[in-house]
């Protein structure tokens, strides 16, 4: 299946992919960035995105698809506009991550891995996000929120609309 990349990816995404590809001796090296740019516009990576990225970077579709499925930050199914990742690894566990996870799911009325009814958030239990000095912590979209207590959650979530 070939697609016309311009029909799937915006001009701005295509330009950013070219800029990234220019850094490396191979176009393939730009694949993670390309998927990231495309995902930022589409919300998730569907088959058309995979095909378009493959076309742009002169790759086989499987070479793009295997990258899209290998890395946690790529979503190959629809997710909320603001993915929430609650670290549940050791340092956060020792400082109450379970309680944060439970309160968050209760407030948003979801189970871990589910998306809120309004499509704003998907809650993921996460592996260590490298902010153990601020445990317990979570990320919402690109932002880290550290030293959490259950009482903070409403105010934080309010910022993402």
């Amino acid at each position, binding site marked *: 299946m070939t697609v016309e990349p311009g029909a799937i990816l915006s001009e701005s995404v295509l330009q950013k992919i070219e800029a990234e590809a220019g*850094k*490396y*001796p*191979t176009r*393939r*090296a*730009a*694949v*993670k*960035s390309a*998927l*990231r740019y495309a995902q930022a516009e589409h919300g998730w990576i569907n088959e058309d995105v995979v095909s378009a990225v493959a076309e742009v*970077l002169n790759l086989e579709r499987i*070479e793009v698809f*295997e*990258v899209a499925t*290998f*890395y*946690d*930050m*790529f979503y190959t199914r629809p997710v909320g506009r603001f993915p929430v*990742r609650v670290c*549940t*690894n*050791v*340092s956060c*566990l*020792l*400082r109450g991550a379970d309680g944060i996870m439970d309160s968050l799911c209760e407030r948003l009325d979801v189970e871990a891995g589910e998306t809120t009814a309004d499509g704003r958030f998907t809650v993921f239990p996460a*592996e*260590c*996000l*490298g*902010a*153990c*000095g*601020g*445990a317990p912590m979570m*990320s919402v979209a*690109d*932002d*880290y929120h550290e030293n959490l207590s259950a009482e903070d959650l409403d105010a934080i979530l309010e910022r993402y609309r």
Partner: protein
Amino acid sequence: MSPICEIRVCLPPEGVDSPWTLASYRERGGYQAWERVLRNQTPREEIIETIKSSGLRGRGGAGFPTGLKLSFMPRDGVGQKYIVCNSDESEPGTFKDRDILRFNPHQVIEGMALAGYAIGATVGFNYIRGEYYEPWQRFEAALAEAREAGLLGDDLMESGIAFELHSQRGAGAYICGEETALLESLEGKKGQPRFKPPFPAQVGAFGKPTTVNNTETLASIPPIVRNGPDWFAKIGVENSGGTKIYSVSGHVNRPGNYEVPMGIPFRDLLVLAGGVQEGRALKAVIPGGSSVPVVPADTIMECTMDYDGLAQAGSALGAGSVIVMDETTCMVEVLERISYFYFVESCGQCTPCREGTGWLYRMIKRIRSGAGTDEDLDRLKSVADRIEGRTICALGDAVAWPVQSFLKHFRHEFEAMIPSREAA
């Protein structure tokens, strides 16, 4: 007793306003070393010798002597070579490189320029874990400033020397912190470790000779070149030069990064971090990130925090990621969580790791749920022993060491959860 003080070499001094800017970095001597090298065309060998005699060892976990690693690169000038910075910090308990990138990005750039020059690389890549958005932004802003100031690019200061530097963001995969997995990922592939040999110094990024160093390692280089190797070596102890950033987390009053001389006694580090929370007793410490063997309280309290000191205690310095656990900690729960981590992060390439991590996790989970059997404890050890040393990369060892050490020191906690034992 004299107060225990931080000595900041890789982190900027405390209380400095916007320490991540070029102006601020310059104020504390930043880029003097790089400009001197550009001006004098310092022989490459001289820089490598300086790093060798500083005693700097890799801060990413393995502790390999940095100068020696740089010297493995082919000396003949032909063909492209690369310097790669490993900022894919993902080992549970580790959060030092995040702060170096956020607060001192120019020192990483200068370190990469110096190391790149020393090995004859004109291009560098900093691979930053995908979740580190703010650190990546800071690093990108610093790159723009450095280019603007003529510190990166072609024919720098009319020396004929070129050095260009790019960042690449990861996308969420622990395994990409392994240097050959990182290179695969940098090339746009799945992050599956490569079989060695060939080593990266022969066949690295894009098939070219490459040196991969950790962020903290590279950030240590500018002050070493500026102040001399003896200055750095004297800060540390025999066999471990310089300062180390210890990331202290878990049950302490003041979790955070503390940059202190190598070889600080653990008890002093614990004081710096405010002591154990709520005045509780210390139970155990994982001193180098979740993969290294756990050390019981009595042993760690007598231990110094350097490569040799922790090896004597049966553990390892790793990345200096110190996870502190107090007397209320359930060691079975902690091991279950660690085992789950390696289970989900195994890249799936080697059978012992791909299958064994799942067996370990499921057995520990079963024990904690109260459905464990007498045989499970020996089976855990036997599975761990059969993963260790039988995989392409060190993730296999990282899986085995926690299981072996938790069972060695805290076997009674596991036994207490097995119903047949309880009745006996």
